[in-house]
């Protein structure tokens, strides 16, 4: 049972505090790999995106991809972090079938990016700062398939050598929600920057979650690392399970062993990784094939100039410029595509109304159709136009919903739809009046009943709308009915 106020977990011996640190591995968006010219595209036929360098053949040498360096700097800037103009690549030595060189080229003591900080947004509207320890560049490993053969694993090196940014957080998170919010925020920032596509299902973003528990005020407990969690949902589940496992262990008088664990989504449990049980001595040393990576302040400044507006800044602007609520702004900026769509739609239209339509109708419909904004049939500009038509009373709110449906189906613009289908709001006073008169005339019983139940006026409104196919200006209808039936106004 989690105490929402201060994130403490109630155990049998008292309250426990959860301490979480996260290492994210993010594949860099680039055409070719970090140290070789092979393609990085996802889903290709196995071992076709492998060069002699990637395969660790004798005599092969690494050459760094300049774009990967820029992407790392960009990301560091997005994390409000210190960019290190001097950094070194080290070899991390160990044996594994998906590691062709017998070492991974990574960065150990002198990474390209140092301390930083991001603000995460929690469901209850609060925000919290999470520190970034560092970001460094390293090679991704290949993949092994274990289900192709009873006694062999099949190794595919397509992914071997793809550029990764490893982003290490400070152990600042205290709940599964905070952990999820952190990863979501990181992902969003990188998507805004276009340095990583954040696609967890395809493996372009993986998280290693470090979990430990302690009694509030105590020293840090022994942590366990849950490796390669590849969905936000699983991050939450894994932490919940692991926290409980550790608390149970300690409360029964046992010690938590430092372990590397895996999360099994089917069982909802973490288990120890057999192959990583022996502790590794990676014997890091500077890669003699690579000189130190150096660049100037000017170089970093040039990159800074190219940065797009980041989510936090954009959200503030939405609140100030468009007068949106923090809650709504938050939703809009949580995905760059959504914020872009909104601004396009609100260019010449009432932003609050546009916001409501995007967050309300549009999201709900896209959800049902299982579509994203990218394949939305309604152009942003057209949605803005629809809002204008409501705003200037060309159509009623009710009719707007119908127009919206037709826009979804046909992709046509709202003005055309309204004209073609004769959906314009009826504003003509005399026309409405005559319709109302007819209804009053034809329904004397209802008129009489009105005396007892004034709310029955709703029925007259309904009838009027029915007669006008929903096009009558609702305000006008109400006014006229009130005057005629209730002697008001």
């Amino acid at each position, binding site marked *: 049972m989690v105490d929402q106020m201060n994130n403490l977990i109630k155990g049998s011996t008292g309250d426990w505090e959860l301490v979480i640190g996260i290492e994210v591995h993010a594949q860099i968006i680039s055409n070719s790999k970090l140290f070789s010219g092979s393609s990085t595209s996802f889903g290709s036929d196995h071992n076709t995106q492998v060069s002699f360098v990637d395969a660790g053949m004798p005599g092969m040498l690494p050459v760094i991809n300049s774009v990967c360096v820029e992407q790392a700097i960009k990301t560091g800037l997005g994390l409000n972090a210190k960019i290190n103009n001097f950094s070194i690549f080290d070899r991390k030595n160990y044996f594994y079938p998906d590691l062709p060189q017998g070492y991974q080229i990574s960065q150990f003591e002198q990474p390209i990016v140092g301390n930083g900080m991001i603000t995460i947004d929690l469901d209850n509207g609060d925000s919290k700062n999470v520190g970034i320890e560092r970001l460094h560049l390293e090679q991704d490993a290949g993949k092994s398939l274990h289900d192709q053969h009873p006694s062999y694993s*099949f190794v595919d090196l397509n992914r071997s050598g793809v550029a990764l940014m490893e982003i290490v957080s400070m152990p600042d998170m205290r709940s599964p929600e905070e952990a999820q919010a952190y990863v979501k925020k990181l992902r969003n920032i990188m998507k805004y920057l276009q340095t990583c596509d954040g696609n967890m299902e395809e493996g372009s973003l993986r998280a290693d979650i470090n979990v430990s528990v302690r009694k509030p005020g105590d020293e840090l407990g022994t942590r366990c690392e849950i490796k390669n969690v590849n969905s936000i949902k699983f991050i939450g589940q894994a932490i919940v399970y692991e926290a409980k496992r550790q608390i149970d262990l300690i409360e029964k008088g046992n010690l938590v062993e430092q372990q590397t664990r895996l999360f099994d989504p089917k069982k909802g449990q973490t288990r120890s990784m057999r192959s990583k049980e022996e502790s590794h001595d990676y014997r890091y040393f500077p890669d003699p094939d690579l000189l130190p990576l150096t660049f100037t302040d000017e170089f970093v400044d040039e990159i800074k100039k190219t940065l797009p507006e980041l989510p936090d800044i954009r959200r503030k602007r939405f609140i100030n410029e468009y007068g949106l609520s923090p809650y709504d702004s938050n939703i809009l900026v949580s995905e760059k595509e959504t914020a872009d769509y909104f601004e396009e739609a609100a260019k010449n239209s009432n932003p609050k109304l546009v916001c409501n339509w995007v967050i309300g109708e549009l999201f709900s419909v896209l959800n049902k159709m299982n579509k994203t904004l990218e394949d939305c049939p309604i152009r942003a500009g057209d949605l803005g136009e629809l809002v204008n038509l409501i705003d200037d009373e060309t159509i009623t709110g009710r009719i707007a919903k119908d127009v919206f449906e037709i826009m979804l189906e046909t992709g046509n613009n709202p003005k055309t739809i309204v004209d073609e289908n004769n959906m314009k709001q009826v504003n003509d006073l005399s026309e409405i009046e005559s319709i109302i008169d007819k209804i009053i005339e034809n329904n004397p019983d209802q008129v009489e009943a009105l005396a007892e139940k004034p709310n029955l006026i709703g029925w007259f409104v309904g009838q009027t709308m029915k007669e006008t196919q929903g096009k009558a200006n609702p305000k006008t209808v109400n006014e006229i009915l009130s005057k005629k039936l209730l002697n008001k106004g």
Partner: protein
Amino acid sequence: MSVDKENVIKIANLSKISFKDHEIEKILEDLNQIIDWVDQLTEVNTDKVSPTFSSFDNDKGMKKREDIINDGDYREDITLNAPNSEEGFFLVPKVID
């Protein structure tokens, strides 16, 4: 500093080399002789000295390459020398995580 047997076994494990029992004695002896000999470096005062990791003289920093795809896509050559391959994959004894 002298190297002990436990150390040798640990190092052999890290290097993925196995020594038969009689070989361990010889390698232990060799390692000790060499390590004792290289220990003379402790005589050198290196207090304010920075290490040299490469003797390559380049004042322009690390050379980079453009982000273009100009390599790979020759699976046959990649697997040409493989001791155990099937359908373009490298085969290894199953590794269970």
